[in-house]
């Protein structure tokens, strides 16, 4: 099969899950549970397999497909819709397919009534993500963005008996759709000035545009993607949605959906705007928003007591780090980011699945409730406890798990570029988020830390998740196995010696704008030859990784025994007043979120323009 044929087959990657989903919705009620589940799994595996074939072919040439055969020709310009598969977009599809398989296996014992709705929605969600990753023009990106969104809102509100789940779905839906409509306004502004929608074509036209058009078009265009990526101050929906969504769904949200938002912003910026006069402003925007997001996410993470909400804030903090790395813009840094992203997706998946198992066994994910009840006997749940502990340590960056490697590669590249603060920044953020996760695990599994009587039983929503099934006093293998599988993937990301080289080459291809334009507009799909680079674990990066694990341990112990600190330290150090303000800002009210959206857009425009 040639690259051209493969390019024409790209729409199959979208059609396959849509077909599976329609089949399940139409026939689901007549099918036994196992068969419906089997159809879903087989469809996702087929899709993953096809994406893997595409991924290996995309190593030699970009795959470009034109829907309906509307290829660009010299006279009429570009009217068709292009789908472009390079290794980054196809790799993201692989990650999504892998996480969905894990989530589906986990959900085998999760829903009893009408599980085919859940399976069908998962397939629609996959179709949306695939389309978004492959789309080669800004309007098609918007359409698939919304398709992915609608499936995600429905998945969040799956448990219609639970009012807080429904409210989470509403907040998620309104904020994300509002962001998407701003993106659409951006599409309209850009089309009005350039007459083009195709990204490759835009990359040639946009450099001649005036600055005002560029600023307005760029900020509006990426607004929706930044909302999806939960960048401060657009992040409010994320923790609400994660706290109430079914656990297998959270795996997808944290592992790949929000990262796709970041991918959208990076794609549009790199191809469309990086050679315009806006490049410096956009760099500044990504850097500042990334730093603020990482900082706020890490602080809020430390303040949570609901495990799912805590993990959600840790995702926000990590996305902040991702955005900061994106701002740096070298192939080495992006390569590190790819390794980091894969390992983070696997680890976060394992952690959320652990949270799901904790919920199923002990009916709560509130660490104080569990600490008070002391129902958790570590002996019987040793496998679960160990999984959780390893995943938490991996999040801090313990070698040889891939997160540490990805961070090390990215921070080395950033330091070489003059950002000497990068390693410290990453150590601090990892220590705070991983420390919070470790603390939570210590309270839940080891029962250590002071029980304070002044804490009310239930402070937050999403704690008492309504369950449809009793699991008894053992975690079933179908729940533990996918978590262990994901954990294994995170180890593989750190241990596969060739991964950093492959990732760096993927990143270089992602950054090669001329190559992208030639492939889409002129059919020249090959790559420029790239030099062989093979960075991997170095002594320095192992030491930095261990340092951040140590720091995470310190944070964990300090927050466990905060009450036993000497009085002056306790009164001086904790950030209680700012913490209260932060809590009040996260009001759970949709009106406030809409205002924050407007403020964020204004701020972003100011940052880009200055």
């Amino acid at each position, binding site marked *: 099969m040639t690259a051209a044929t493969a390019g024409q087959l790209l729409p199959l990657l979208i059609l396959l899950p849509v077909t599976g989903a329609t089949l399940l919705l139409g026939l689901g009620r007549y099918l036994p549970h196992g068969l419906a589940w089997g159809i879903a799994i087989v469809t996702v595996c087929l899709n993953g397999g096809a994406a893997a074939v595409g991924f290996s072919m995309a190593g030699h040439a970009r795959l470009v497909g034109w829907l309906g055969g509307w290829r660009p020709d010299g006279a009429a310009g570009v009217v068709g819709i292009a789908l472009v598969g390079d290794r980054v977009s196809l790799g993201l599809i692989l990650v999504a397919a892998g996480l969905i398989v894990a989530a589906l296996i986990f959900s085998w014992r999760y829903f009893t009534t009408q599980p085919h709705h859940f399976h069908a929605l998962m397939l629609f969600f996959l179709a949306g993500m695939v389309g978004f990753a492959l789309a080669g023009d800004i309007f098609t990106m918007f359409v698939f963005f919304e398709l992915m969104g609608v499936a995600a809102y429905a998945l969040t509100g799956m448990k219609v008996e639970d009012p807080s789940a429904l409210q*989470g779905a509403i907040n998620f839906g309104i904020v994300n759709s509002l962001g998407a409509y701003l993106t*659409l306004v951006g599409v309209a502004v850009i089309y009005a000035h350039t007459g083009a929608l195709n990204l490759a074509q835009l990359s040639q036209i946009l450099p001649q545009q005036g600055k005002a058009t560029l600023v307005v078009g760029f900020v509006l265009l990426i607004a929706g993607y930044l909302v999806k990526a939960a960048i401060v101050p657009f992040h409010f929906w994320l923790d*609400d949605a994660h706290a109430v969504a079914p656990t297998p769904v959270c795996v997808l949200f944290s592992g790949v959906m929000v990262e796709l938002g970041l991918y959208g912003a990076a794609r549009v910026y790199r191809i469309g705007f990086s050679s315009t006069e806006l490049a410096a402003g956009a760099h500044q925007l990504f850097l500042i928003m990334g730093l603020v997001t990482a900082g706020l996410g890490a602080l809020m993470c430390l303040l949570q007591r609901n495990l799912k909400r805590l993990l959600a804030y840790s995702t926000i903090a990590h996305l902040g780090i991702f955005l900061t790395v994106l701002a740096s813009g070298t192939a080495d840094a992006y390569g590190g980011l790819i390794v980091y992203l894969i390992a983070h997706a696997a680890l976060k998946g394992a952690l959320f699945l652990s949270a799901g198992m904790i919920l199923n066994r002990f009916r709560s994910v509130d660490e104080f409730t569990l600490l008070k009840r002391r129902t958790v006997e570590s002996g019987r749940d040793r496998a679960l406890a160990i999984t959780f502990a390893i995943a938490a340590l991996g999040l801090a960056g313990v070698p040889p798990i891939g997160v540490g490697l990805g961070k090390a590669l990215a921070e080395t590249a950033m330091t070489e570029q003059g950002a000497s603060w990068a390693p410290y920044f990453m150590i601090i953020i990892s220590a705070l988020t991983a420390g919070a996760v470790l603390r939570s695990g210590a309270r839940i599994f080891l029962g250590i830390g002071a029980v304070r009587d002044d804490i009310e039983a239930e402070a937050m929503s999403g704690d008492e998740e309504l369950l449809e099934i009793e699991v008894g006093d053992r975690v079933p293998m179908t729940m533990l196995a996918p978590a262990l599988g994901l954990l294994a993937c995170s180890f593989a990301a750190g241990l596969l010696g060739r991964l950093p080289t492959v990732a760096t080459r993927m990143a270089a291809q992602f950054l090669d704008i001329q190559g992208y334009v030639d492939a889409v507009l002129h059919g020249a799909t090959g790559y420029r030859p790239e030099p062989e680079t093979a960075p991997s674990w170095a002594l320095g990066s192992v030491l930095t990784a261990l340092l951040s694990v140590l720091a995470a341990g310190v944070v964990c112990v300090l927050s466990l025994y905060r009450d036993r600190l000497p009085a002056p330290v306790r009164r001086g150090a904790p950030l209680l007043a700012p913490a209260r303000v932060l809590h009040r800002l996260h009001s759970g*009210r949709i009106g406030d979120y809409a205002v924050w959206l407007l403020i964020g857009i204004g701020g972003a425009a100011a940052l880009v323009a200055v």
Partner: protein
Amino acid sequence: MSYYPYAVGLAIVLLGIIGIARSRDLVHAVVCLSISQSGTYVLLLAVGFDRGGVAPIFGSTVSRSTRVVDPVVQALTLTDIVVSAAVTSMLLAVVLQIAKRRDTVDPDQLRSLEG
């Protein structure tokens, strides 16, 4: 070319957002979201409009040299309407469920998500 239709489109988008910000009723909020999206229809159609242009249906009376309005934005608007139908109906269904469970659709009385 007049800037009036652009101003109207943007104003509708902004009014929708302000409506959501001030909303005391989730049905109202979802409808405001839909209003905000209608602003994008106006904006898109305004972009492709050409005074004196006819519908771009090429045949015996309309040839390549005839002035026509831009069909691309019309295709975008139609797609946009479909997307909007999906989003609005989905969110209204969720609001309906909330009303069933809690007997209220006032976000201030539904404060279960503080955190």
